[in-house]
């Protein structure tokens, strides 16, 4: 297996995630796109862990998973809050402050 196979898969996922966060208006979908990005990072970390013959990458990946879970929790709480106040989860409506 080539190292770059994994890395490029990671890069593709990353960029799809980036596309997602830019074009998705629904906040829940944006959160899903973020998960894509974070997963690409984990693929990278584990591939490098294998390449460098060290365990640090595994640990790092576990921390990333845990933090990602926390972030999703917070994000969904905010989405709920937003929904409760505005009856909508469209991010475009969050433009009361600008300029």
């Amino acid at each position, binding site marked *: 297996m080539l190292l770059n196979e994994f*890395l490029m898969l*990671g890069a593709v996922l*990353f960029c799809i*995630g980036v596309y997602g*966060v830019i074009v998705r208006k629904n*906040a829940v979908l*944006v959160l899903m796109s*973020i998960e894509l*990005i*974070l997963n*690409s*990072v984990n693929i*990278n*970390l584990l*591939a*490098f862990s294998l*390449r*460098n*013959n*060290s*365990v*640090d*990458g595994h*640990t*790092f990946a576990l*921390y*990333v998973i845990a*933090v990602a879970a*926390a*972030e999703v929790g*917070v*994000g969904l*709480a*905010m*989405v709920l*809050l*937003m929904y409760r*106040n*505005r009856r909508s989860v469209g*991010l475009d409506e*969050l*433009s*009361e*402050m*600008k*300029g």
Partner: protein
Amino acid sequence: MLSALATAWTSPSIDYHALAPEIILGGGIVLLLLLDLFLPDAKKWVLTPLASFTVLGAFIPVLTLALSNQGVRSLFDGRYMVDDFSLVMKGLFLLAGYVVILLTADHLREGDYYQGEYWFLLLTSLLGMVMMASSRDMVSIFVSLELLSIPAYMMAAWRKRDLRSNEAGMKYYLLGVFASALMLYGMSLLYGITGSTKLVEIATYLGSDLTSLRALAVFFIVVGFAFKVSAVPFHTWAPDTYQGAPTPVTAFLSVASKAAGFVALVTVVFVAFPGSHDVWQPVFWILSALTMTVGNFLALKQTNIVRMLAYSSIAQGGFILMPLAVAGVDGVANSALRSVVTYLLVYAATNLGVFAIVMVVARKTRSGEISSYGGLFSYAPGIATLMTMFMASLAGIPPFGGWFGKFTAFQSLVSAGTTWSYVLAIIGGINSAVAFGYYGKILREMWMKPVPDGDTTPVTVYSSLGVALGITSISTLVLGTFPGIVIHFGDIAGLTGAFIK
């Protein structure tokens, strides 16, 4: 084969003195949470003093550590360092946190907030900052960053029924996650290239091969922190979040959170990337120039005071970034670090003071517009004078602290002596003149405009706000009048791993 199999696990030896600030904060957090759970509502007032005593209590070991002669304390195999730099920054975070607690105390009581949870989040975020100051490997830095950010996201949205507060929290959260994703990607690449997460080892292994990947990794990490310090073009969240978040939270974000971003940035750049200055120097140059200029120009257009202060704080961030643009030049690294530390100290004192006044005035006028400051001098001369002092400090007029921060920044630039550093110095000079345009606007409102609604009842300054104002104004004045004190902090702020190997 993975060699780690062979080594049996041994319990890591922990220097509890070195970890005492973190432990005290952590204990306080847990205690706060438990008390919040079990105390009846009538006794919930206990939480506020508990929070402030926790912060002050955590400050004690910072002092004892600073006074002990043991030098650098290295924990967890060099992944966590308690050196002078980290102690200075921990002190800054804790004091800033204390002032924010003072700012919040009455605000919380009057508003519709969950108090116990608010203190819990504030202290958690502070814990993240305190850990950030000592973290010397990528995992610690990442976790500390999240530890300080996640509570801050929620604090920004803490005014639950306010649409603006929701919006502030959501924007801050989303962009924060985007930025930390980018940073994580950069960290993963860095780990791949060097095979280590320890900053010192990264510096050793980060050779000149794999140049394009190295550039990518360094750049993404810098971007991640550039978001945190709201450097243009990664600043977009800042004005909206500052405006929408509860004012004490804004003060916290614009001072402590920004300082934490700088601490991380400085640590990573100086400890891990000293050899890659060909990558980050131009990046910082552009970031700094853009940040100052865009921040200033947009600040000129603002009519809302907090929003203007947001842009002002963006622009100030540009000044703090200035010395980093030349920190790779031989012999400048030390003075650049000193300048960043000095500027952060001065900026923290001044900006917290400004927000204290914003809160005092908003309590009376119930408005965030700059025009609501009209005639402030006629009914609150003391407040107007203090505000003038803070504005003068932000604009860099001696003898208030701000001038000295700018002075050290320019000093680093000039001592680098390259063409680009001079150009940046000139851009900085022009910007510091432009900045007076909007600081002067406030001064003009306060001193030379009539009171908008003719209501000249004097403002009430609650005792906690008064203490906050006292601390910040005296620090601003003292830092500007006797810069020797702040220089002393700057001097001892050597960064272990970068300068004291």
